[in-house]
């Protein structure tokens, strides 16, 4: 049973989402945007099944997930906000970070202006499914000129008690010249099939800045789909970093609409795929206005039988003079059975723009490996040094701070190169 307010407009929105999802069905690999991503794990899953009314989660569990250097933390358990597990006391007055369901109850018109408006469900099956079945999510409202100093962490935890799918809907509204850094962390139990289908809508006012590190580290049986979409005001800046570590199949898509002059976005990411994982990244940058800038860097380290995918589209619309767009995807294959699919593309309808894209797929450089070995460094360390150096190219875009440093360590640990990282830090 939904806990949401039963406002007629919301009911209509959800009914529309449901109708659209039923008409579209699950995305198939015939659709260009989904060509590398297996949604078959979702077939037959009752995506609309109600989740548990209340889920229990130890405080210790949350403490173990938390990153250092974050000033506050909002916790969602099985898709619903947990006030008792959250720690939001340090937020400045006037800044709201918490439950979307609560915001819908308290000030529905404020939410209505953005919900479903930044990321419409038309033609987007998984967004439509989320619209149909979300019953909570993150609500962020940062008023004009407010700056939240220090990163705020948002944990989305799936428990053993969860239903087959959760649909968190996050709505982030930053007023004029507002500034915020968020770290999303997605996690869940190992050895269990479950689905997360999240949508994050971002409305950035003029001159606002949002930095968002999105850390997907779901359980090994999870299917994770997360679509982020931003509408950007004049001179606003969006920086997303999509780190994909977990899940059986995980997809993070970002669409940035640079709709006003001077808007810029940095969409970066790193995916570490092993075993039989399929990790998918899809981006769309839509340059609709003059003097807009975009930068993209996605790195992939792919081992075993895993598959890493990147599809990136950059549109430069008519009239978007002086647009400056760069898009780069680099993949490192660690096994002959590993696969990288890379598809960057540019669609340019205007002259007088700068745009570049590139992609590489390669293995560890034999010459570099031999150079390290010839100096007495062991084969394991030599590999670790080179793999970490590759990952650090992407990780350099995570930004500063203890939380970023902790994420670099988590990556190094997953790559088996933590000792290398520690020794590097000593010498830095």
């Amino acid at each position, binding site marked *: 049973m939904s806990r949401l307010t039963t406002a007629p407009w919301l009911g209509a929105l959800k009914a529309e989402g449901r109708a659209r999802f039923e008409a579209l069905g699950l995305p198939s690999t015939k659709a260009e945007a989904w060509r590398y991503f297996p949604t078959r794990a979702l077939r037959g899953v009752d995506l609309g099944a109600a989740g548990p009314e209340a889920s229990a989660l130890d405080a210790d569990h949350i403490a173990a997930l938390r990153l250092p250097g974050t000033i506050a933390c909002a916790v969602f358990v099985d898709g619903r906000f947990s006030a008792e597990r959250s720690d939001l006391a340090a937020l400045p007055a006037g800044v709201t970070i918490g439950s979307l369901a609560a915001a819908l109850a308290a000030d529905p018109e404020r939410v209505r202006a953005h919900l479903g408006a930044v990321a419409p469900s038309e033609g987007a099956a998984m967004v439509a499914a989320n619209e149909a079945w979300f019953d909570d999510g993150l609500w962020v409202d940062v008023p004009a000129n407010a700056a939240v100093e220090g990163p705020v962490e948002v944990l989305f935890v799936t428990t053993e008690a969860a239903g087959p799918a959760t649909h968190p809907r996050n709505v982030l509204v930053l007023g004029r010249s507002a500034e915020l850094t968020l770290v999303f962390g997605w996690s869940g139990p190992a050895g269990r099939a479950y689905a997360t289908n999240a949508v994050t809508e971002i409305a950035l006012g003029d001159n606002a800045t949002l930095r968002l590190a999105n850390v997907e580290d779901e359980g090994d049986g999870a299917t994770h789909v997360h679509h982020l979409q931003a509408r950007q005001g004049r001179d606003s800046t969006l920086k997303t970093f999509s780190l994909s570590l977990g899940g059986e199949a995980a997809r993070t898509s970002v669409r940035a609409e640079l709709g006003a002059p001077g808007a810029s976005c940095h969409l970066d990411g790193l995916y570490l795929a092993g075993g039989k994982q399929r990790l998918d990244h899809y981006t769309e940058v839509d340059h609709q206005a003059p003097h807009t800038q975009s930068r993209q860097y996605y790195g992939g380290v792919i081992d075993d039988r895993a598959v890493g995918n990147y599809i990136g589209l950059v549109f430069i619309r008519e009239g978007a003079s002086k647009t400056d767009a760069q898009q780069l995807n680099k993949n490192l294959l660690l096994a002959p059975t590993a696969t990288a699919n890379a598809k960057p593309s540019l669609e340019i309808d205007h002259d007088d723009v700068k745009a570049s894209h590139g992609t590489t797929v390669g293995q560890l450089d034999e010459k*570099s490996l*031999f150079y390290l*070995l*010839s*100096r*007495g460094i062991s084969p394991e360390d*030599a590999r670790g040094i080179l793999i970490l150096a590759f990952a650090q190219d992407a990780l350099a875009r995570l930004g500063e701070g203890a939380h970023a440093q902790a994420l670099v360590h988590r990556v190094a640990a997953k790559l088996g190169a933590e000792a290398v990282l520690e*020794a*590097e830090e000593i*010498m830095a």
Partner: protein
Amino acid sequence: MLSINDLHVSVAGKPILKGLTLEVVPGEVAAIMGPNGSGKSTLAHVLSGKAGYEVTSGSILFKGQDLLALEAHERAREGVFLAFQYPVEIPGVSNAYFLRAAVNAVRVHRGLEELDAVAFLKEMREQMKRVKMDPKLAKREVNAGFSGGEKKRNEILQMAMLDPSLAVLDETDSGLDIDALKAVSDGVNALRGPNRSMLVITHYQRLLSYIVPDKVHVLLDGRIVTSGGKELALELEERGYDWLRGDAAA
């Protein structure tokens, strides 16, 4: 120190070294001279354990042990050092980190304690001074964006830090201007000693005016065709290699 006996090596099925025999005694600086394609770099690579070289017959003894039985990193730890003709750029890895990892791997193998960061950096700075290397290069990425001379100085720096008993210098002089050549040669000469041998592989006699060898060996078509003292290098400079080709064919 080094005893190579009737060594035959092929690359992709093609014989390159065809019965090379060479003896280097402790403390000796031996020059290997030869024209392009004679097998000089193959010799350097086979000694260092690079993949892709097939030893079809013959043996290499290094300090009495079978060098060919060791992996590349084990050879380095045992005391073989190759100064590369083309030092490799490794973006994302700092020179200081790389060299400390190497030094400590070698030290542990030799039963010495690891150097902590402070002790290592002190040593590194001193050695950098000796090869006239800009101290800023310590923090830079390994060889990335280094000039030709800086890369070669970096090789000699690594050699000084790793303290090998056999140093193989593969065309260390090629492409260097005279200042860089002098700095590199001074660095090498400072490392000469009774317990260290050097194999100086070069195409040009010029280097041997700065690093004066005890012996000169001529490598032609995969074999040592003649050996002599340092004056042989001068003779080769004047007469070229053609007058030796008859011997190679014989």
